[in-house]
């Protein structure tokens, strides 16, 4: 309702007040209706129109951006017409509501549906209880996937963090800081599939009789060794996984380096000077002052990479497709869901993966909060 000053109210007759009330209700109902009508008309136009492409594009942009602005404006206007107490209560939801609705639609509902599927058989017909889950923990391939994922988590995250930290520390003291950091950071721009192709060349193996075109084997042969099939080297299972993990370290070290570099630069120089006066050597300053100072960043980067390696898929899929004992949880999930068409089993794997990520995620978020990142 429109807020009218008390003095004005007294001057208005009953009839005038009634008209004011009716018109404000009219405004509150008609404006939203017009807005929706306009937005709907835009939708119909976009769906059915045969106009030239650029016209449609233009209309789509105006319709999309303008439509959202109009919706916010209309809803906000409606809420502001309510009594102040209700305005304060509802206004946040006008702004957060659409985002929440989209989150529920795209995240919460699929998760719930996946869980529901995981309790059913391959065609989602019969309810099978926890049978899929017990299969996950008993099947040989799944146990292999769990073992490999554990290796990914441990070595992938640790090496990424260590290497990133090393580069950040060394680059910080070097004249070649920008150049070296650019080169370390560059792989970040390469897709996982692209990285897989590149590393396939590095690992390429040819029969002993012909020249080796793979970098690694060329070096081995030049040093008088025999070429190795590296990631397909089944004699050393599970350690051949390291040849895949290296690829992700190569990709992720840049990410961790950038964050560590920023954190190291954020340490007040007086702190290091205090350490120097207190009698610490440069190495002691590094380990006892600088590293503890950026501890929060280290944990954040580490957990981020742990989550990332838990979900690792592309690299394995491109390089080995899960052969040679390199299966991981995500490749199993893909294979079961989309190759074997066993939606129940695949969903169960997805749920297990989700459950594994959640604790790390919570720890990560808590760390963010401690750093007052949000």
């Amino acid at each position, binding site marked *: 309702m429109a807020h009218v000053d008390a003095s004005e109210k007294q001057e208005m007759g009953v009839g005038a007040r009634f008209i004011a009330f009716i018109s404000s209700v009219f405004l509150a109902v008609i404006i939203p209706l017009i807005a929706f009508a306009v937005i709907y008309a835009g939708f119909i136009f976009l769906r059915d129109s045969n106009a030239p492409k650029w016209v449609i594009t233009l209309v789509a942009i105006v319709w999309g951006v303008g439509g959202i602005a109009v919706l916010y404006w209309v809803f906000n206007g409606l809420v502001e017409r309510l009594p102040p107490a209700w305005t304060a209560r509802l206004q946040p939801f006008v702004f957060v509501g659409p985002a929440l609705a989209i989150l529920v639609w795209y995240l919460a509902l699929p998760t719930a549906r996946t869980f529901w599927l995981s309790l059913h058989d391959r065609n989602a017909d019969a309810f099978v209880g926890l049978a899929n889950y017990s299969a996950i923990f008993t099947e040989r391939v799944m146990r292999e996937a769990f073992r490999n994922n554990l290796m990914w988590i441990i070595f992938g995250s640790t090496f990424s963090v260590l290497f990133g930290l090393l580069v950040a520390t060394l680059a910080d003291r070097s004249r070649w800081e920008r150049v070296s950091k650019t080169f370390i950071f560059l792989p970040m721009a390469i897709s996982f599939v692209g990285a897989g192709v590149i590393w396939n060349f590095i690992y390429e193996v040819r029969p002993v009789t012909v020249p080796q075109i793979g970098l690694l084997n060329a070096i081995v042969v030049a040093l008088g060794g025999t070429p190795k099939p590296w990631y397909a080297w089944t004699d050393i299972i599970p350690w051949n996984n390291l040849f895949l993990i290296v690829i992700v370290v190569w990709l992720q070290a840049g990410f961790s380096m950038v964050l560590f570099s920023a954190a190291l630069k954020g340490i*007040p120089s*007086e*702190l290091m*000077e*205090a*350490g*120097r*006066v*207190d*009698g*610490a*050597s440069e190495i*002691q300053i590094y380990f*006892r*002052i600088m590293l*503890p*100072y950026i*501890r929060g960043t280290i944990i954040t980067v580490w957990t981020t990479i742990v989550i990332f390696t838990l979900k690792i898929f592309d690299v394995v899929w491109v390089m080995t497709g899960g052969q040679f004992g390199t299966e991981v949880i995500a490749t199993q999930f893909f294979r079961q869901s989309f190759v074997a068409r066993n939606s129940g089993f695949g969903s169960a794997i997805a749920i297990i993966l989700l459950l594994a990520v959640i604790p790390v995620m919570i720890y990560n978020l808590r760390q963010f909060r401690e750093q007052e990142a949000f």
Partner: protein
Amino acid sequence: MASVTYRNVYKRFGEITVITDLNLEVADKEFVVFVGPSGCGKSTSLRMLAGLEEITEGEILIGDRVVNDVPPKDRDIAMVFQSYALYPHMTVYDNMAFGLKLRKTPKDEIDRRVREAAESLGLVPFLDRKPKALSGGQRQRVAVGRAIVREPAVFLMDEPLSNLDAKLRVTARAEISQLHQRLETTFIYVTHDQVEAMTMGDRIAVLHDGVLQQVDSPRNLYNLPANVFVAGFIGSPSMNFFDSTLVAEDGTYYVDTGDFRIKVPDDLKSRFADNVGKEVIFGIRPEDIHAPDLAPPNITAAPFSATVEVIELLGHESHLFMTTGKNSVVAIVDNRFIVSVGNQVDLVMNVANMHLFDKQTNLAIR
């Protein structure tokens, strides 16, 4: 316990010279304050002594040892930083014990020293806290405590009070002075605050643009400033300066400012005899200007008049900002002296406390 010597010290950053030919001897157990406006090189001088900044030219000695190439940890110094630079991940106890632990001091000795320092600084209840959980004053005391436990030969303090509020600063000032008396160690203290310098230092070194202007006791610095800069820097409000000529008439000397004439007391004549007829800068402190009726007895009063522009009533005294023709003058007068803005007032200056400076060199004429 050690003396500190700066011998022809220069500091250059590339082309820019920030310290020029610094020569200074600090005696054992002395409290010396480096003071000057920002950018004068006082912090750099201290940091060179601490070993945090390289010495471009010249020598710095701690005791009899040239320390130019000695790393900070081997200089037997402790430093309190402006930001305190407490290690945020360590408790108060560990912050204080860190330096001793690095020196492999026995555990019970560390414990004894830390507790003793904490006791004297009132930090015992906070030993298990992290710096984040402390107030500004407490942090400052932890920083001091961290220096104390080291039992260094020289204490270095780089504006340790500038992050405290005005009231706390007064208390902390007294605490540091007491600390110096108790520890009987050499203190070198950097500040831009002349009140801190005057109240704490045995001697004060005034720096300006990287050049040492004067080193002297607070009393001498105030009464006998060596040049115009020191005269203007020490004292608040600053000394009044007038471009003048020293003239002699019938055996009497006068300072002619162009606006008014001041008779030079006869007992000062011999000092200024060489400058008769020359251009000089006449200086008089605001506190040496009085209302005629309220002037203290036994002063050598010389009258002049001025127009009041601004009045600042501080309670116990008033600051009058005035003009005398082309010059502006500040006076600190008794609060019973009632004037209003725009008034032409007659005042007297105590010319016994007058200062004369050479116009060319800016040096005091003595």
